[in-house]
């Protein structure tokens, strides 16, 4: 198996290099999201090695130097070149994982397929950035939604804030409104506009919501089936069985106190165990 762990670490290093330079907060968030995705993939590779009882892959000191150099180059040349370099990197990952997947079976095959699919989704996002279409980029110059990493059109307006810069595209605005629990969803319109938009942004930028976007929007973009979400149905716990009796103390209670005073008065009430009830 190729040294995927080292490749992911090298990809992260290049993304870190980009993050150190990029000033556009929308693009910075895209880089951070990709970094997070490569960290997840690195963990997957390591876990697969553990499951196969192989020595965990090491040797990241001699990581993929070419990939690091590509990243360094991209830092100096603006977002378009960076996007192209990232696309090249993800293309390499996709190809390598698909080749490895074809040579494998069982659990390994399953994990490699998942890793390949992730790389394809990242590549599809970059494809969309490099060749914007109306379905994925509603405005020009192209913006990057901090939830779906695209800029899709929708019924509600896109949400923008400054300090810190925040952008949630119109389609994500639509989708996130449906993510509130029913009791809160019914109240959305009654919230003052500023508060309402703040709460929608908060939810849009939560990990749960971002993951949902990646597993649906990015999957469609990459031509993959959407990962169905297994939303848990609410439940009630049955009444608890009768509890065993509580443990009484065998040691006498000792409360030394002054003859009178505020603290003494409080101590007496507190350790009477019943008198405080009048304050409830």
């Amino acid at each position, binding site marked *: 198996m190729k040294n995927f762990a080292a490749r992911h670490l090298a990809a992260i*290093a290049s993304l*870190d290099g980009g993050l*150190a330079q990029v*000033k556009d907060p929308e693009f910075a*968030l895209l880089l951070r999201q990709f*970094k*997070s995705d490569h*960290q*997840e993939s690195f963990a*997957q590779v390591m*876990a697969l090695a*553990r*499951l196969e009882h192989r020595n965990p892959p*090491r040797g*990241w*000191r001699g990581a993929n130097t070419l990939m690091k150099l590509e990243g360094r180059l991209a830092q100096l040349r603006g977002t378009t070149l960076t996007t192209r370099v990232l696309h090249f990197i993800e293309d390499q990952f996709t190809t390598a994982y698909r080749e490895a997947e074809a040579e494998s079976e069982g659990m390994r095959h399953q994990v490699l397929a998942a890793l390949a699919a992730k790389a394809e989704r990242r590549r599809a996002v970059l494809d969309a950035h490099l060749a914007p279409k109306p379905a994925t980029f509603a405005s020009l110059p192209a913006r990057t939604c*901090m939830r779906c990493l695209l800029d899709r059109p929708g019924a509600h307006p896109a949400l923008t*804030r400054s300090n*810190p*810069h*925040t952008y949630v595209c119109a389609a994500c605005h639509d989708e996130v409104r449906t993510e509130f*629990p029913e009791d*809160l969803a019914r*109240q959305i319109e009654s919230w*003052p506009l500023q508060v309402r938009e*703040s709460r929608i942004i*908060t939810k849009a930028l939560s*990990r*749960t919501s971002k*993951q949902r976007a990646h597993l649906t929007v990015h999957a469609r973009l990459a031509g993959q089936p959407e990962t169905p979400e*297994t*939303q*848990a149905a*609410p*439940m*009630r*716990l049955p*009444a608890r069985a009768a*509890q*065993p009796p*509580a*443990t009484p*103390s065998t*040691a*006498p*209670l*000792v409360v*030394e106190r002054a003859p009178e*005073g*505020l*603290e003494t008065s*409080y*101590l007496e009430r*507190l*350790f009477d165990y*019943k008198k*405080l*009830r009048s*304050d*409830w």
Partner: protein
Amino acid sequence: MRLRLVGRIPENSNVRWVRSTCGLCSIGCGVEVAVSDGKMCGIRGYDHPVSRGRLGPKGVGQWQCNDHPTRGKTPLMRNQDRLVESTWDEAMDRIVDHVNRAIAEHGASAVAFYNSGQLLLEEYYTLSKLARGGIGTPNVDSNTRLCTATVGESLMQSFGADGPPGAYEDFEQADCIVLFGHNAAEQSTVLWMRMLAAKEANPALKIITIDPRRTATAKAADLHLAPRPGTNIALVNGIMRWLVENGHFDRDFVDEYTVGFAALRTLIEPYTPTHVEAITGIPAWQLARAAEWIGTSPRVVTTCLQGVYQSNQATATACAVNTMHLVMGKVGKPGCAPFQFAGQPSSMNTRETGADGSYPGYRNWANPVHMADLAKRWNVPVEILGQKPIAAPDIFEQVVAGQVKVLFVMGTNPAASLPDRERMLGGLRDVFLVVMDPFADTETVTLADVYLPTAMWGEKTGCMTNAERRCNLVQKVVEPPGLARSDFDILVDLARRMQLVDRSGRPLIGYTEPREAFEEWKACSKGTIPDYSGMTYEMLVERGGVQWPCNSDRPNGTTRLYLDARFPTSPERAESYLKDLETGHDHSKHEYEKVVPPRDRARLISEAYHPPGDEVNVEYPMIAVSGRLAYHWHTRTKTGKVAELVDAAPRVYVGMHEEDAAGLHIEDGEVVRIVSRRGTLVAPAKIGDNTPRGVIFVPFHFGDPETSPNSVMPALSDPASKQPIQKHAAVRVEKTDGRRDAWWRAP
């Protein structure tokens, strides 16, 4: 301070007394535990710097639950619908297999850890290293998210980093104490004793309480302000406006050590006493009197607790309290502190070690230099660090959405304590749930796929750091029951079985004893804000704890932070690049560099008031708030097993104002139904004037399906701290079948 002696002292003189630390709340009282024939048989205070012999009723009773018959003694594994006994090897192998498969198939974030504020520093540190440096999951948080997450966030916003500036001795030195949403008489009993003793010694000391309810604390205060639930920020803005208008602010301090005064003035300008009265219901004269006392007292301490942290605009309000102190220059001086209070005995440690939504040593996850430093100390690749930590509400939403596949719950009971409870329970049922707990009967254990019995207080050794940054040692005095193991031992075993290694191929967790973990933590924290490098276990026992930072420059620890009024807000030192208070969105490093205060200044922060998210209307005309009682802790997993505490507060009740009750023809003790937009609870009504009109109060300790206030609380959190809002649900009260249960009238 006078020495009091409180305890349960066995008549048998043939006992061994061992010094330790109370494990109930965040005060950190010194205790001596009586041991005879391998069993705990008593407890007493001693001349410890925090407590001077005092103990509260929960602390006195805590050892009594260790031998309760519901203690777990052997691992259990789910076999269809039943939990059956297993060996440790079987249980751990099953866990490791599930964890590895979940990560391989979905990524590291498919595994989540939800821990407690009741474990030990060495356990948190091990968990942090295992989860962040080994597995690589960002889904690590603590139940402190539900109680004091706002503390850390507000301190980061105002001062640049977490770490309460003050010390308990400030309460004795103050001229005015403001207890904001802090029912000290029920939550912090020993500290309240200290405050009452201070009041006795200095009758001129003024105590102001801010709480919607007329609590025991409020009744003893010199002034009680009762804001409508959810309006705290308007009150603090009003107090600050009065202070500024009347010249009770320190212009030199503001100019030299803070930024943002002009914007603050603009923000607070509309908050006249009459405007604040319209929002909060607090009479204008009360606001003016409180502000006058705060402004004219040379030394002021303000504490905040759940009344702030679990309420609407929590982080903004806590920041505003910090701001109020900064504006007056009352920070970093004896008797002066905004005391953002911890709730649980080791909640400070969760934040210091990175076992909640943070990284160890208050390192900034978005600062590559901080991450490189941590990677070097852990000997792991820096590339796997720096993930944005995820807070508990988002973790549980991932559980409900099926994104998290394996959830570890350690020493806490989310099945009873989470808001929007029924929806969350569905997630807990469906995820592969590993529960590590001393007791095998909690609501969460009933949903477990694997249950691991753990050692509890008195059965393991390690540190707990209290709300004034004082690290104390908790000692093992007896063996855990049956096959139970400490959380520490389980985590070390988990790391070993998962073959987690560092860059050199050596075991990631290279130690096996808590003392070795403490030594590694000292090295990890060296040079950081919570610097423990100068401490030893022996020093902690000898001195009754030591306040961090403690290092070669400060070998005796540090009583107060920020004596020089220089704050760690520079990009190099800051723990966070700041979040937007309205949305919780993070500034990037470049954005932060544009707004960073020059020369290590603090920030003056507040926010305009906006109404809470769960709207009160004709259908749901009242507000439900939840809170604590003096005799129970959280969901009673421990205190519910101590006879005296159960007798003191055996069941749930709904506190209700007599006029509201009369309007609904409800009598004292009558069982009523509380209905919200998302759930219901049933409990007897306790009628009086302690709960204000339009509000009902429910203690949150009782997690049974019918009685938990979390069934009615919405899934809303503070945007910045992500702390759930558990003190505001719109509800209505309905009569039921006329049953009565006025248990509080029993003699």
